[in-house]
């Protein structure tokens, strides 16, 4: 079998880390090379997980939107009316994520359309923070946002850059 994308990316990254970077004397050039190393790590993660994550994310978003579209508390919120129509329109369209394996770019675009709709949902339900009828909806939306973030972190973590140790006390809060 020919080498996979992941294997080739790893090969490039390890050559960069083990051979090139130790021999770069210029500090700026070394900083750039280390940036390349991090992005290659990120690409390895994407090659391994992105397709699966996008499919799962879009399917979970559609399940959330289906529940929201029939939520009585949300339906009673005046500002929800235009959003309800957007939810129905989105759900009426068949999702690539639910069909045959689609092309990666189309899958990404579809997922981002769903995420944009989630942003609209957040803006409506969080603006009515005092509305107890929406408490359950808010909780399910917030849980979805955290789940999405966890998937994103799997891909983005190799690129993390810190410019100072974050306060451990604050982070533990």
């Amino acid at each position, binding site marked *: 079998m020919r080498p996979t994308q992941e294997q080739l990316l790893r090969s490039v990254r390890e050559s960069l880390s083990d051979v090139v970077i130790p021999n770069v004397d210029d500090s700026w050039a070394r900083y750039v090379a280390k*940036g390349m190393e991090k*992005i290659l790590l990120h690409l390895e993660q994407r090659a391994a997980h992105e397709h699966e994550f996008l499919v799962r994310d879009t399917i979970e978003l559609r399940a959330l939107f289906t529940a929201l579209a029939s939520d009585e508390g949300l339906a009673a919120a005046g500002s929800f009316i235009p959003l309800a129509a957007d939810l129905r329109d989105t759900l009426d369209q068949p999702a690539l994520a639910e069909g045959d394996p689609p092309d990666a770019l189309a899958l990404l675009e579809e997922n981002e359309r769903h995420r944009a709709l989630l942003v609209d949902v957040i*803006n409506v339900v*969080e603006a009515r923070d005092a509305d107890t009828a929406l408490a359950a909806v808010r909780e399910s939306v917030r849980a979805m946002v955290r789940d*999405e973030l966890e998937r994103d972190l799997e891909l*983005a973590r190799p690129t*993390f*850059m810190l*410019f*100072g140790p974050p306060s451990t006390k604050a982070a533990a809060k």
Partner: protein
Amino acid sequence: MEPEVLTEYLRGRLPARPDLQVTGAKRVVGGMSRETWFVDFEWNGGTESESVTFRIDHEKGAVVPVPLEFEFRVHQALHGTQVPVAEPYWFEHDKTLIGQGPFYVRELVEGTASPKYLYAEGQEALRESVGLQFAELLGKVHTLDWNAAGVGDFMEVPELGPECALLELRRWQRNLAEHQSEPLPVAAQLFAYLEREAPTDVERVALVWGDVGIGNFIFRNDNIVALTDWEQSHLGDPMKDWASALWRGVDNLLPREKLFEEYERTSGIPVNLASIDYYLTFIDAEYVCTSHPILDRFTNTEVPDVTFARLGMGIPWYCMDHGMTMIGL
């Protein structure tokens, strides 16, 4: 940066220094908002020498959405006040002068901003001393008569109260919205929290340094001699600076209680812990708003260099995770 081009430029600016010759130009590794170069030059046949700092917009514009001239004006306003900053020399709009721009030149303050030196083994006494000085200097920033310094001429002035946070929040939200390459539900969640919880109890409208942390001040012979990185400064709640400082680990110099004690003793401004907690999340959101838009520069026809990709990915997701944790989600 070609030494010949820099020599030509500096000769034009400093005609009284005969035979001026640039002897070195080194790009500083670290802060990515703009290019920073240390430039050395000598004159009088090499018998006299000086070094200056060049701050230059990247070829495709600045990373932080604040004009470079804003930073120059902050240095102009603060130099000579109780807040120590490098002296600004010249602001140049003309890109042809050095082949890149706009740019400005300022004094190169001798010393180091290196956290490595500060955290080296055996530097406990230095860390304590620098920590106490830092707390006192932060108080000096916050007690500065910013009106007298002319800062109110070019910074928006919020009303005392929630507007101190909300004015700034809206500025960063706008920047994200204008350069957003993908929808960010986490950012929407953080914004909702920040909008809802903006502190009402604000001691004073103060000059806020904005980008506070270890690495953003210069120390020499155990003394802090200059505060740097003013491009995100604004007028608002002084507690935001404490959040920024703690976010970047200033309490690794001294326990936060000691830092707060010194700040309150020297400035007279009470520390508001609830506000600091709020602003810790604000800092996360602000970093998302300043760094994620960098990815907008990747298009079908043009891509910036890889350091921009690293910055645009490496900061926002870290901060989104930290911010969500801070608000208990």
